[in-house]
């Protein structure tokens, strides 16, 4: 395709109109004398409307616009992990090298280091029939993750030659009979989902170490979850906790239109964190995309696609990938901003009419799949939503809730009481428990689902009792209901509250979660017995061993001591009965 040149006709913020070219929709073009990167988003008569990924001030009508013939793509290959990108896959450390601490413009940077050499170990052999998605070789990309080099999409044939050794990612490592040369790097257009054979129903939980999530509202590997919440309710901390502790093999973290200092915190912290599953730095499995709120809005729009394409690529290698997008509202606002510059007819609250279909398309790229190479991989998507004023009746929250299967509703009231994670246990839900129950029975405890039901029922009863307490005070309730309130309080303060900043409390494995839940239920049972036997509620509640049990969760080795602490509590409760 010959490269035609056009000129700029109009500039309005991040939207530039060009004449004199007839590009394809979503083609990448270079705008102006500085060659700023842009993407064609509308064709209108002889005018092409372009969203530009960099700041446009100082650009004039009449400056050139050059077609590239390609759609917005990412480079995929060894070197993705531990990297931090902006919304269009430019590595931020590279940008710092070329333009200093402030991001200026017109700088092009490859997503992957094209010079770095990797040790490639061929697994395919000469004469093998290979097709797209098939693994032909392996590279130890980081200490913990083996990068599986796959045949690029739409390529297949018989291997003519393949060699192990040290190569950079653009060197040919494999040649097919028809002369096709395969290197370690491939490219993929971000707005197209990568192919797979079929989707499976998710039936394995994504374990996050966060008690309220794993225990009450679990997410499956390959599932989707939405976290809406007003500012200050802990969305970002929750997302970061998931990025840190979830048992996915690969984590893609998209900071979409959020705070610069928060991204820095993540960047500073992750290299020092140790993955509880592998005992290696968490950074080894992480790819980060940071497009902060003051970076160009069009690149923010692209950032979620860049992220999910990278996630799909690792899925295709047979990995379980978790993707966190913080926040999808900023992404939606980027769409709104561009849409209004295009003078499109707005839908609800000024958002474009295609908002909900874009959201659906994005979340639909999650899933547990059979990959082209026949292995099993998944992408779980967890999207934060930032509804204005915390009111989830707005379009982005609603569009998200229609699609996702798990809803973790953050609550400003809980956050205000410093109940963290401030996830409201009454209105949050997960549609996965049924699919996952068998897994819990087989792997944790046969009565796991029943314990969960009991805990959530207690919380439900508490909320009903609280309404009465609001009117008459707790002393007016019968003793058994007062006990229920105490038990529910224990669930909230001991089990649901979890301190993300505490070395020990920040992560609880499923076994411990189960034992903690059981401890609460056994307190309830013992207390009932004791009260029936004449003990005072106050004495039962205040046995020192219960405080020890509750405070103990902040100490190392708690999982080994919890059963002793429970039996000590039972003993003391028994004693309180005899004291009367």
């Amino acid at each position, binding site marked *: 395709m010959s490269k035609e040149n056009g000129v700029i006709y109009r500039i309005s913020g991040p939207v530039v109109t060009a004449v004199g070219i007839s590009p394809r929709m979503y083609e990448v073009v270079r705008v102006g004398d500085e060659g700023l990167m842009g993407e064609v988003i509308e064709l209108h008569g002889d005018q092409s409307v372009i969203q530009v990924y960099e700041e446009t001030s100082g650009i004039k009508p009449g400056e050139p616009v050059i077609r590239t013939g390609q759609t917005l793509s990412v480079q995929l290959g060894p070197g993705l992990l531990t990297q931090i990108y902006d919304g269009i896959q430019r590595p931020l450390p590279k940008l710092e090298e070329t333009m200093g601490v402030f991001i200026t413009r017109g700088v092009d940077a490859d997503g992957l280091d094209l010079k770095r050499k990797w040790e490639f170990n061929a697994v395919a052999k000469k004469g093998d029939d290979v097709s797209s998605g098939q693994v032909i070789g392996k590279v130890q990309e980081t200490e913990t993750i083996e990068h599986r080099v796959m045949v690029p999409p739409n390529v297949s044939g018989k291997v003519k030659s393949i060699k192990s050794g040290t190569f950079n990612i653009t060197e040919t490592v494999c040649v097919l009979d028809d002369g096709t040369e395969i290197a370690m790097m491939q490219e993929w257009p971000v707005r197209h989902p990568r192919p797979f054979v079929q989707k499976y129903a998710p039936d394995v939980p994504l374990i996050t170490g966060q008690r309220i999530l794993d225990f009450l509202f679990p997410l499956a590997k390959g599932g989707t979850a939405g976290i809406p919440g007003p500012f*200050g309710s802990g969305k970002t901390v929750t997302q970061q906790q998931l990025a840190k502790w979830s048992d996915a093999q690969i984590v893609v973290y998209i900071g979409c239109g959020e705070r610069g200092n*928060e991204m*820095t915190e993540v960047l500073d912290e992750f290299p020092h964190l140790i993955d509880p599953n592998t005992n290696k730095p968490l950074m080894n499995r992480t790819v980060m995309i940071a497009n*902060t709120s003051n970076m160009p809005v069009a690149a923010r729009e692209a950032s979620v696609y860049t992220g999910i394409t990278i996630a799909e690529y690792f899925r295709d290698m047979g990995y379980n990938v978790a993707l966190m997008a913080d926040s999808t509202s900023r992404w939606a606002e980027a769409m709104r901003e561009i849409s209004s510059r295009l003078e499109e007819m707005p839908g609800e609250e000024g958002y474009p009419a295609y908002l909900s279909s874009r959201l659906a398309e994005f979340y639909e790229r999650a899933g547990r799949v059979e990959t082209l190479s026949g292995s099993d991989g998944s992408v779980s998507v967890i999207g934060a939503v930032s509804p204005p004023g915390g009111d989830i009746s707005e379009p982005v929250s609603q569009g998200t809730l229609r699609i996702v299967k798990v809803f973790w509703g953050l609550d400003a009231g809980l956050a205000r009481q410093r109940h963290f994670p401030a996830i409201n246990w009454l209105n949050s839900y997960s549609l996965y428990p049924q699919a996952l129950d068998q897994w819990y029975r087989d792997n944790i405890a046969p009565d796991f689902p029943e314990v969960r039901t009991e805990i959530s029922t207690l919380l439900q009863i508490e909320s009903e009792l609280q309404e009465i307490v609001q009117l008459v005070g707790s002393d007016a309730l019968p003793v058994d209901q007062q006990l229920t309130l105490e038990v529910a309080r224990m669930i909230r303060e001991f089990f649901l509250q979890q301190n993300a900043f505490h070395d020990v409390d920040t992560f609880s494995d499923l076994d411990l979660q189960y034992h903690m839940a059981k401890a609460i239920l056994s307190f309830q049972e013992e207390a009932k017995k004791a009260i029936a036997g004449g003990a005072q509620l106050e004495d039962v509640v205040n046995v020192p061993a219960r405080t020890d049990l509750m405070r103990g969760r902040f100490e190392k080795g708690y999982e080994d001591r919890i059963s002793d602490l429970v039996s000590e509590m039972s003993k003391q409760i028994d004693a309180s009965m005899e004291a009367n």
Partner: protein
Amino acid sequence: MSGKEYRTITDVKGPLVFLNKTEPVSYGEIVQLMLSDGSIKNGQVLDTSDDQVIVQVFEGTASVDRQTGVKFLGDVFKLPVSKGLIGRILDGAGRPRDGGPDIVADEMADIIGAAINPYSRQSPESFIQTGISAIDACTSLVRGQKLPIFSASGLPHNDIALQIARQAKLVDSDDDFVVVFCAMGITAEEYNFFVHDLERTGALENSALFVNLADDPAVERLITPRLALTAAEYLAFEHDYHVLVIYTDMTNYCESLRQIGAAREEVPGRRGYPGYMYTDLAMLYERAGLVKGKKGSITQFPILTMPGDDITHPIPDLSGYITEGQIVISRELHQKGIYPPINVLPSLSRLMNAGIGDGKTREDHKSVSDQLYAAYAQGRELRGLVAIVGEDALNERDLQLLKFADIFEDQFLRQSRDEDRSISEGTLDLAWNLLSNIDTKYLVRLDQKWIDKYHPTEKSSNEEE
């Protein structure tokens, strides 16, 4: 550039001027309008194409006519910056207002300001002691943070901002702060209040002021904070100053933004504010922080008044999503006569955990702060209950918490306008004293080791068990 003068104005609408048939003009370029009476107005290109150019006029379009000459200056808006800015008072467009000479520029800085590469930022983690207990204990401020004051009309947010400006100090160094003050659409009276206070305390010599008052052009307000932040960036990152930027009132800024949006007939977002307001605000707020390899820092204190005391209004709402927390001023506390009337419950500092604890403030800070919150939140909730059922229906624990809420407001929150409490002896010890009114067994947020060490009556030394 050419400096060619055009007389091709076709439309004038609110603060916008539309021109036809110009040479190519760049987006964001600065424009001068020559009025027939010889006066000059300044503006900036908002939209440019071969056929039409839209110019936003900072001083308003009064007396602009079709004969007005328009000159494009071939450059985007720049502020002359030098260390000489310190001690000066400039107007909302960066011209001297104090009768002094023009700023001798060391450099011309683009006022839009480029985004800091997130990779090049340094995590803010140095505690700033403000001497105000509510802030220091519960919403601790760190250097490089942006922490707005969410207030409402009739509340003493200006006193609080000034008290912070006066008392703010770093605990880990002797460096002083330079204050960059940016006024957007405030009244002359408020402005005088600020200036007099800064003068009285001698802080004026250490400040740079950018002032757009209520009767100054509304559109100019859109550039005033950008000038202030450009000056702040220059002082912080070229001259290693720790800069404290106070700007007031963000609500006026947003109103101006809406005005321009309406004049351009843009599709409005919530309550008529433009859909890009989030991005626009972020371009201001995100200019806080620290960068690797530079000693200086920018800490921001934007003040905004919530229309109708409504925290869900788009201005506080979008701000809250960008800033690293907020300090919420409460009308209820103000009416009880408590100064500073900071409601700690909805207030928040997101960077607090990085700036407090052993070696920074004190090891027990986090626990104490959590416990204060929890106890005060429950105490306040119980007030509602007591109003219905009376105190008799409360158990012992609830009674203690109820009483604690009163003590907390009266002794912990309340302090005088010049009372500068140190974090350890002034604030945290006071917190322990107040918490000792509650039985230790109800203080579940406190680690036992801190109780043993700091509790006034249960310290290990006088424990017998």
